């Protein structure tokens, strides 16, 4: 019986070891796809999430836009944006991801630039910064409520650019 217990104990330890070995990678992915951890090189230290561990993505809330005046107002904000003149024409997608905290403030902006074949590309820096600065300045974000509590959430805006003009804003 004692031997039997020893074997059981050994099997238990082996199983535990195997389970731990099965998922060893702790750095490849964030807590959740699309999470934006704080980066002291990039992020404003004054932006404070309320409870980052419980941050959700925007589509998990009933209101798809979570912006005062809905998407119509977001589009309107960019209608008035004067983009810098450039020598060459560029087209593709600029996606800006960010976090909205439970007070409706934004931070942790990240940018992805793709051509229409979904390959990496680089827009002119001044052009990109102009769109980024306007996105950072948007101040109509609505704190998301779930279970009667405000939550931090991740949001993104994708700008479809054709020949240096914003032709659409998604989602």
């Amino acid at each position, binding site marked *: 019986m004692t031997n039997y217990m020893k074997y059981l104990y050994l099997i238990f330890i082996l199983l535990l070891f195997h389970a731990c070995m*099965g*998922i060893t*990678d*702790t750095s*490849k*992915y*964030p*807590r*959740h*796809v*699309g999470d934006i951890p704080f980066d002291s090189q990039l992020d404003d230290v004054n932006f404070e999430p309320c409870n980052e561990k419980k941050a959700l*993505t925007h*589509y998990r809330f009933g209101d*798809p836009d979570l912006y005062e005046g*809905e*998407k*119509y107002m977001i589009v309107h904000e960019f209608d008035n944006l004067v983009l810098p003149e450039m020598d060459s024409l560029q087209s593709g*997608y600029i*996606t800006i*991801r960010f976090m909205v905290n439970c007070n409706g403030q934004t931070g942790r902006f990240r940018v*992805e630039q*793709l051509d*229409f074949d*979904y*390959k*990496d590309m680089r827009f002119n820096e001044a052009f990109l910064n102009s769109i980024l600065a306007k996105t950072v300045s948007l101040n109509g974000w609505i704190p998301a409520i779930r279970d009667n509590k405000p939550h931090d959430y*991740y949001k*993104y805006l*994708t700008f*479809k650019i054709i020949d240096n003009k914003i032709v*659409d804003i*998604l*989602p």
Partner: protein
Amino acid sequence: MVRLNMWYYKYLCLLLFVFIGNVNFLFGQGNCLIYPEDSGERKACELSYRALEHRQGSKESQLLFDEAIKIGPKYAWAYYQKSVPFFKRGLFAEGISLINKAIELEPWNYLYYRAYWYFYNRSYGYCIKDLEELYTVHEESYTTTPGGDLEMRLLLAMAHAQSGDVPKGIYWMQHLMERYEQEPQLKGLYDHFCLGVLYYKNNQFDLAEVEFEKQLTVDDKFADTYYYLGLIKAKAANNTLAQDYFKQALAKMNGENGGYSRNSFEAFNIYKEDVEKMLND
């Protein structure tokens, strides 16, 4: 006799438990048992179902999908499932790269999903290419958006319209309507609305009105239908009726009597400001 009945019921209960157990076992593992035992696909399938036990997009689930792909690189569903959270969170390059692999293996199963995101991103040319392949080469007879509310031919039709070929959009909507002749129960909530919009864009206002009237019989709470009917009446210089429709559209958008609007039609979406503008004209 009573004893026989008791035995019979016990036996029946036992059979029922065995049956439920088998059903749970089979469906709990999805369709993994269709793959040969010890095959990479079987293991990948089982790992993928384990991944689904975690929150979509969580690190735990992504790592399990990675493991599944490593063991069974020909198991398409793992690539597809792994791609979903990337798309939903605006990480399109990663999403496209993963779904491309699923499509290489099983185009008939996953073209619709890539097409859905192409449409969503206004990549109308790519959306058309994927969906025309799905419906012509793979002869798909009926498939919906991931949420299940729109048949993919609505997106194909709208993509054509957005690319400047409205008649081709109408062709695909008619193709879909023919499909419903065989199985009318499949008809969705917005098919007549979509066809109505395309007729409207093609300046076929009488046909558009017919479709919008049909749409009202399917769902009279959808605000956008009233807006387009208002536009048709405005075109016909019937301003009184037009204004009446715009008022109804605004009321529905404000949620009166269960009214609603929705933003699934991209460039054809209607916003409250659009309706208010027509009311003020």
